[in-house]
């Protein structure tokens, strides 16, 4: 090259001296093999996930057992904090959703049963489904979205900023300090929230009965009492602690799985929410089959 300006010459010289070979393309397996590889990986990961979940649940249970034997390690202030966050602050939204769900059920019930003249059965439909299924399911899904995500994100950020390591060096057990208070708080709040949703759902049923069926509140209560018994209430409430364990364990486990980056906090939080909602619904289905078989 001739006639280059001096400053351009420097640039040309610098670039000419660089190793400019593009990176060698990574060898890729053919498409059908990649599909098999991806399927195998996903399968292995799911299996590992399952064992991790069992392992974490076991360790959480061991920590709870240890705390029962030595209640000195319990942290009342942390538990109270998480009860406020997961329970008290969720009251308005849980109540509102419970009312909405019974409105939906009542409208569908009236619409479907009216041609057969069975619209009065709407009250049975609403009260049975709210007490047995809807209240606990809606509450658990809501809490999984609110608190499961919060658990994963809070613990995840602590993990990525090395705070979990700092705890370990100080001889403090993250299981006891972070997981146990959240688990205990959720074990307390989820059944209480479910009961609150039961009450709000029945109140919603009363309001809708008045407007759709012209059944007054005084007539409504005896009808509800005829439709359901305490067994229906218990079937709903007994599921709440199980869902609480699933939500708390999934949230905390995914939080502790976070690695350095901020992206990883987002990924694990999403996984925690999706997985706990999935597990809640699957378990609810299993519960339904179980209760059907034993005839409750």
């Amino acid at each position, binding site marked *: 090259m001739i006639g280059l300006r001096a400053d351009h010459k420097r640039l040309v010289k610098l670039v000419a001296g660089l190793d400019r070979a593009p990176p060698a393309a990574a060898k890729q397996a053919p498409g059908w093999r990649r599909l098999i590889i991806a399927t195998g990986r996903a399968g292995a990961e799911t299996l590992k996930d399952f064992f991790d979940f069992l392992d974490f649940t076991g360790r959480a249970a061991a920590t709870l057992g240890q705390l029962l034997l030595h209640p000195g390690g319990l942290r009342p202030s942390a538990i109270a904090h998480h009860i406020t966050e997961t329970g008290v602050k969720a009251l308005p939204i849980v109540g509102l959703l419970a009312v909405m769900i019974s409105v939906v059920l009542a409208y569908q019930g009236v619409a479907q049963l009216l041609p057969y003249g069975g619209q009065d059965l709407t009250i049975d439909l609403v009260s049975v489904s709210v007490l047995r299924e809807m209240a606990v399911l809606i509450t658990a899904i809501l809490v999984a979205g609110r608190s499961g995500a919060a658990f994963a994100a809070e613990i995840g950020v*602590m993990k990525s*900023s*090395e*705070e979990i*390591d*700092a705890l*370990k*060096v*100080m*001889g*403090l*057990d993250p299981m006891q300090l972070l997981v146990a208070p959240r688990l205990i708080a959720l074990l307390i709040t989820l059944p209480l929230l479910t009961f609150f949703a039961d009450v709000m759902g029945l109140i919603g049923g009363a309001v809708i009965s008045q407007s759709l069926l012209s059944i007054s509140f005084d007539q409504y209560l005896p009808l509800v009492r005829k439709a359901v018994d305490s067994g229906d209430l218990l079937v709903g409430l007994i599921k709440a602690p199980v869902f609480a364990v699933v939500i708390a364990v999934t949230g905390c486990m995914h939080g502790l799985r976070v690695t350095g980056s901020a992206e990883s906090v987002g990924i694990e939080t999403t996984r925690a929410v999706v997985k706990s909602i999935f597990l809640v619904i699957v378990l609810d289905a299993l519960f339904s089959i179980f209760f059907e078989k034993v005839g409750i």
Partner: protein
Amino acid sequence: MTNSSPDGSIMSAHGIVNRFGKQTVHNGIDIDVAAGEVLGIAGGSGSGKSVLLRTLAGLHTPQAGKVLADGRPVADLLPAERAAFMGMLFQHGALFSSLTVAENIMLPMREHTQLSNEEQVPLAALKLALAGLEPAAGSKVPSALSGGMVKRAALARALALDPRVLLLDEPTAGLDPTAADGIDELITQLNDVLGVTVVVVTHDLNTLFSVCDRVAVLADGKITVGTPAKMLRDKQSGVHDFLSGPRVDAARAAMVGTAKPKQQGAEHGK
């Protein structure tokens, strides 16, 4: 008070092997930390300095090899023993963001001692002052502190239980030169006055040459240990690559100017 292992080392690691995937970061590393010394661990990025420190702290389990703290496997230490034996300063401080600085310092005291709250408050203030922070910093939350203050606050927390060994991960990284000099001075002072053994991972050459009694350089999965002066004369390729160049020359010149008295001829360990 010490019952260290016979050769006078307070911590030691033998035959440490760490692999991540196909990459071998540590390939049989032996290192002894002598009681009372300041040991610097240096090496290029990715040479596994932080992993080695985490291995010493018992936070990372190596694929092979063992770490002894006070002659006992570090994994066997009870939580309270571990907290009393070592304090660790993490690269980004790792202060608990929901607690104030003073509460951060008091957390290990609350968990591992019988001290009442009235006794903990002045102790926390003392640790804060030792780390060179104003008393007012104690009531602040970590997010309200500057980078240098975070390191000092984290150092105060690491000192909470008067540990015998301080593990510092890049204490001067990300600080301006003045703040970094302050941290260097603080490390020297804590070592001299409190007699605490310090293991410091750093690639800050000033810290290596003006604070450390011995320097360990990690290169190619192996470690080479010696006094700063000896390391500078080392002609092994990995060590020489790391400890040569204009920045090293400048830091060496600074060391000759300000060398602390105890450094002359003080050759700890083997």
